[in-house]
C-alpha cells in the first residue's frame, strides 16, 4: 500500500496534503466566478490533470434516503444519457440503482443508491485485458470506451454489480460521455462535472441531502470530517478494496 493511501485511511493530514490544499485554494481563487464549487479547497482548473492529492468520494446517509424515491437514478439517466434502452429488463443498463434492504431479525428497512464504488484497489481494473478499465489519480474509476473490447471480465470481477454491458445500438452520448454497443460502462462519478468543480448529478438531485460528495483526502472537507467522526461502512469491506463510496446507517 502506498504511503498516500495509508495516510488517507488513517484520516490524518500529512504535510504534503496540507501544502497541496493551500495550492488548490490559490487555483480556486483564479477560477471564473459563477462556477459552482463544492468547496474552494477542492477546485482545480479543468486544464490540470487529475492528481492524487484528491481522493474523490461519496458518503451516503441511508437514514435520510427515502424508500421509493429514485431522483438520483433519474438525474443520472438524464445527465449521462442512459436508460432509453429498448432491450429486456435484465439487459438494461444500470449505472445507479436503488436497493432496498430489510434486516432479517428486526425487520428494519433501509433504502440506498448503489453504483460503482470507485474502489482504491479496483478488481475491474486488475482483470481488464486491455487496460480499458482504469483508475484516475484522483480515485475515479472509468472505462475507456475506445479500448474496451467488450469481454465483460470486469463485470465478472466487480463485487457490486456496478457495471453494465451495452447490448444494442445506442445514441452516442455527448463528447464527454461516449457510449457504444458492445462496450461496458458504469458510474463515472460525473467526472465531467467534477472536473469543472461541480457535484455529481445524483448528489445535486437528492432533496433529502442524503449524499455528500467531496475529497476524502482533504481533512477540511465535510465528507472527510464525517467519515472521521461517525461510523460509516464500506460495502464488502472484507474484500479490502477500499471503496470511495461509503454508507452511513446500515
Amino acid at each position, binding site marked *: 500500500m502506498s504511503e498516500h493511501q495509508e495516510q488517507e485511511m488513517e484520516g490524518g493530514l500529512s504535510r504534503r496534503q496540507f501544502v497541496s490544499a493551500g495550492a488548490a485554494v490559490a487555483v480556486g481563487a483564479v477560477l471564473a466566478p459563477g462556477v459552482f464549487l463544492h468547496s474552494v479547497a477542492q477546485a482545480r482548473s479543468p486544464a490540470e490533470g487529475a492528481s492524487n492529492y484528491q481522493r474523490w468520494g461519496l458518503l451516503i446517509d441511508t437514514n435520510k434516503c427515502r424508500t421509493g424515491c429514485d431522483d438520483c437514478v433519474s438525474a443520472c439517466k438524464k445527465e449521462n444519457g442512459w436508460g432509453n434502452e429498448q432491450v429486456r429488463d435484465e*439487459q438494461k443498463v*444500470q449505472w445507479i*440503482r436503488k436497493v432496498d434492504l430489510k434486516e432479517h431479525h428486526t425487520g428494519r428497512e433501509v433504502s440506498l443508491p448503489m453504483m460503482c464504488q470507485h474502489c482504491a484497489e479496483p478488481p475491474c481494473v486488475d482483470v481488464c*485485458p486491455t487496460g480499458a478499465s482504469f483508475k484516475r489519480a484522483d480515485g475515479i474509476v472509468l472505462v475507456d470506451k475506445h479500448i474496451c473490447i467488450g469481454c465483460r471480465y470486469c463485470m465478472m470481477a466487480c463485487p*457490486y454489480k456496478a457495471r453494465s454491458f451495452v447490448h444494442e445500438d445506442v445514441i452516442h452520448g455527448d463528447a464527454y460521455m461516449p457510449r457504444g454497443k458492445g462496450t461496458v460502462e458504469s458510474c463515472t462519478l460525473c467526472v465531467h462535472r467534477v472536473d469543472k468543480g461541480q457535484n455529481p448529478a445524483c448528489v445535486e438531485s437528492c432533496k433529502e441531502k442524503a449524499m455528500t460528495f467531496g475529497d476524502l483526502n482533504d481533512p477540511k472537507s465535510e465528507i472527510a470530517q464525517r467519515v472521521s467522526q461517525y461510523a460509516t461502512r464500506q460495502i464488502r469491506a472484507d474484500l479490502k478494496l477500499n471503496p470511495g463510496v461509503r454508507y452511513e446507517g446500515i
Partner: protein
Amino acid sequence: MKVLDYSEIEGRSGSYIGWLALLGVFLALGGAAALTMEHYGHAITGMNNQVVWGMPHVFAVFLIVAASGALNVASIASVFGKSFYKPLAPLSGLLAIALLVGGLAVLVLDLGRPDRLIVAMTYYNFKSIFAWNIILYTGFIAVVYVYLWMMMERRFNAHTKKAGVAAFSWRLILTTGTGSIFGFLVARSAYDTALMAPMFIIMSLAFGTAIYLVTIIAAYRWTGRELGFSVIARLRSLLGTFVAAVLLIVAIYHLTNLYITQKHDVERFILADGGVYTALFWVGQVFIGGVLPLWLCWHKRWQSSVTATVVASLFVVLGGLAQMYVIIIGGQVLPLEMFPGFDVTSGFSDGQVARYTPSVYELFLGLGGVAIAGLVVSVGVKILRFLPVSLADSAVDPHVKSAAGKQ
C-alpha cells in the same frame, strides 16, 4: 520397435466429402450467428447484465481446456518416454491445435467488439490474467506447431523430447491460466477457491482423452485402416482414471465448500435446489459425465466393446459441457452477497437468482467452434502425414500377442 509408416488419408470418398460438408454447414451457421450478434448486439442473445458470460463461454472454455488435454497422449510418448504412445502423438498435437483454434474463435466472436481484436493484441494490461491467457494461447499453438514439426520431420526427431517437454509445461500453465480466470473472481463465492486451477487440469485430461479416443476410432474406421484393440484399451483405461479423478476433485471442491459457512448458499443451490443447475450437476456432470463412463470403461461386460468406449467418450464430452455450464452460468446466476443479514430487493435483480436462457445464436456460435476444430483435424490428416498407416496390435507393440478383445 519397427519404424511405422505414416500417410495422409486419401480423402476422396463420398463419406469424407459428406463429412466435410456437414462440418461446413455448422461452420456457416456459426458464422451467420456471429455476424447477426455483431449486427444487432448481444440484445438477441440470452446473455444479460446479470449473466454476462453465456453459452459461447461454455463451449469456448470447454474446447480450450480439452485442447490442453488432447496433447496429453503426445506428452506420454515424448515426456514420459512411453514408446507405445509414439505413433499416436502426431494426431494428439493436431487435435490440440484444432481444439484451441475452435475455442479461441468462439471466445473472440463473442466479444462485444470482435472488430477490436487488434486492440486486444496491442494493448496489454500485464496484471490481467486474461491478457496473460491471450499470450498463453497463441504461444501454445506455436509451441505445439514446433513440437509437431520435430516429431514429423525425421532429421529433427532428436529434438522431439525437448519440444515435447516445452509443450507439456506450456499446456499445464495454460490450463492453470484458464482455471485462474475464474479463480481470480473473489467476489463470486462459487469461484473463489484455489481448487479451480487443479480442477481444470484434471478436467482437461478427461475431456482431451475422450475427444482423442473418438477421433482416432472414427479416423481409422472411416479410412478402413487397422486399429488394434490394445490402443483403444490403453486409452480407455487412461480415460477411466481421469474421469474418476474429476469426480474425486469435484467431491473435494464441494465438501470443502460445505465446510465454509459463507459458501452454504452456493452449495445448496448447486447440489439441492438450483433447478436446472442442480439437474445439470447430478444428471449431466456426475451421472452422464462420470458414473456412466466409468461403468463403460471399467465393467467386464464392456471390456471388448469399441462401441462402449466411443459411447463412454461421448458421455464424457456431454458431461464436460454440463460441468462447464454449471461452473460458468451456475456461478453467475446466484446473487452477489453484499448485505449479509438483510433481504435485498431492487429493480436490477439484486437478491434474486438471475435468469438465463441460451439463444440459438449462442448455441450455433459454440457449435461453429466445434466445427472449426473438426475441419482443422479432417483437413489436417488429408494434407499431412499425421496418421500411421496401421495401428494394428503387432505394429504398435511387438509384445502384444493377441488383442485384448475383438473389435
